[in-house]
């Protein structure tokens, strides 16, 4: 394992400390237990939004703390959900009197820890609602599984819900739009290479020189199937087809096309994938209204990418375009 780290046990602490120094204008970082809070929190009269989860997916979530998006992020150990304490602290820190929304990716650990924190916050008189994202079509949803995973769609939920909160929506309204974005978002990813969790020291799985994993999760969880590498256009087709057919997205739909890198993928490959994805949508009469291309929700240094489609309505477009000022996503100010 080669990484730019010191003690594997201190990776998250030291990285978040660096983040705090680099973005002191945007965030305040509390340590022990660690959570990242918008510098001007709590914003009175605004719904607070807290998200979090295991570290290793940066810029998710700390990179999205700031005006128009999250009020706080709670990073756990690498790929490990945070415990309830920092979630509770973050929830208290961002409560501006209008309640707090938890945006939680659908993993057993995240759901359970956020649940506990929400119970504790409620006991302290803070109104909390949770939206659980589960946009990954790679895993069959069923009563007999943990359900679909929350992946790249989470970024879109955070941006759009963040804008709704910023314009003054109520907790119910913010939760409703967050649910709506999640319900209209679908994703699927693939990996060329595994990633290595610092404290594990070994790659999360192994792939032969000519193999790729289709349907990969964002924790290096193996996916749907392992196949021989194919040209980029075929790989894009393998991801976008199930995404399109799941919702389904149909001719005339307006979408946001999000091509996300897994952390170790060069931009040149992401845009190359974007080209094919746009072509497929064009062929199907699906209109790309907005785009996002880059490493926005990652798995450490994993190489690979995911494709997310979000079916847009006018309100979502307006909220997507609204100003946002965070470390990783910024426009309009």
């Amino acid at each position, binding site marked *: 394992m080669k990484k730019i780290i010191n003690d594997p046990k201190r990776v998250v602490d030291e990285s978040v400390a660096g983040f705090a120094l680099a973005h002191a204008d945007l965030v305040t970082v509390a340590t022990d*237990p660690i959570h990242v809070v918008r510098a001007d929190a709590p914003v009175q009269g605004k719904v607070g939004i807290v998200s979090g989860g*295991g570290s290793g997916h940066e810029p998710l979530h700390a990179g999205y703390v700031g005006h128009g998006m999250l009020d706080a992020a709670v990073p*756990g*150990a*690498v*790929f*490990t*959900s*945070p*415990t*309830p*304490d920092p979630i509770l602290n973050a929830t208290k820190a961002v409560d501006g009197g209008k309640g707090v929304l938890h945006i939680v990716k659908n*993993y*057993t*650990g995240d759901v*359970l*820890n956020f*649940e*506990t924190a929400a119970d504790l916050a409620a006991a302290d008189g803070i109104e909390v609602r949770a939206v659980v994202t589960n946009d990954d079509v*790679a*895993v*069959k949803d069923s009563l*007999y*599984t*943990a359900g679909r*995973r929350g992946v790249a769609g989470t970024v879109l939920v955070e941006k759009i819900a963040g804008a709704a909160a910023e314009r003054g929506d109520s907790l119910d309204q913010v939760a409703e739009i967050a649910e709506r974005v999640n319900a209209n978002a679908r994703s699927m990813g693939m990996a060329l290479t595994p990633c290595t*969790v610092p*404290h*594990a020291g*070994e790659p*999360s*799985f192994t792939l032969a020189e000519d193999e790729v994993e289709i349907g990969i*999760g964002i*924790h*290096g*969880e*193996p*996916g749907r199937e392992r196949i021989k590498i194919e040209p980029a256009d075929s790989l894009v087709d393998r991801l976008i087809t199930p995404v399109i057919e799941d919702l389904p997205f149909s001719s005339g739909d307006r979408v946001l096309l999000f091509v996300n890198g897994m952390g170790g993928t060069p931009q040149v490959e992401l845009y190359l994938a974007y080209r094919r994805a746009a072509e497929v949508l064009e062929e199907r009469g699906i209109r790309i209204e907005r785009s996002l291309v880059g490493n926005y929700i990652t798995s450490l240094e994993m190489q690979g990418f995911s494709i997310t489609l979000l079916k847009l309505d006018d309100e979502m477009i307006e909220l997507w375009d609204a100003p946002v000022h965070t470390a990783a996503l910024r426009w309009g100010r």
Partner: protein
Amino acid sequence: MGLDITWAVDWVRRSAESMSEHRVELINLDREIGDGDHGENMDRGFQAVLPKLDDLPAGSTPSDVLKLLATTLISTVGGAAGPLYGTAYLKASGAVGGEVSLDADAVVRMLEAGRDGIVLRGKAEPGDKTMVDAWSPAVEAARGAAESGASAATTLQAAADAAAEGAVATEPLVARKGRASYLGERSAGHRDPGAQSTAYLLAAGAAAASNGTSA
């Protein structure tokens, strides 16, 4: 002879030792069908509780130790295992509240409450390839032992043995809860890391108990 505060503290100490010792093994099991952090998570949690044991007030009961363990795990482990084990120990603590010394029946009550806590939070059924598949046979075995008149220590040993078998028996299963469920059929052929850690934790309890009896 029942299991008292000394046993309870020893259980936690031995559990911490076992989690350290098997840290890499549990990480590797979790890498196969999960995300490779289970050993790290458990080790972090049990290391965190050790210094707190020294601050237990005089007159503490096994229930107090279990509660301390529960709250520490909840606030340090994270992931799925943190809340699940946290709830297990919290409910176990409640089931033997106030008792100074646990007899075989108390051991059964404790284990059953622990298992029920996990099921309450995690909604897994036996056969879903989770830690429940170690806890459930452990509870049954403990009940059987206690009903046939075994000592608390022997009851706990029976539970530990059954948990170990239960962990092994998760290998052919297809996971239906937790991260491994994303793998579907491909989860078969691997042991569930949480079931294995459960086996180690109950083995630590049994070892602490037999040590107490022989001492």
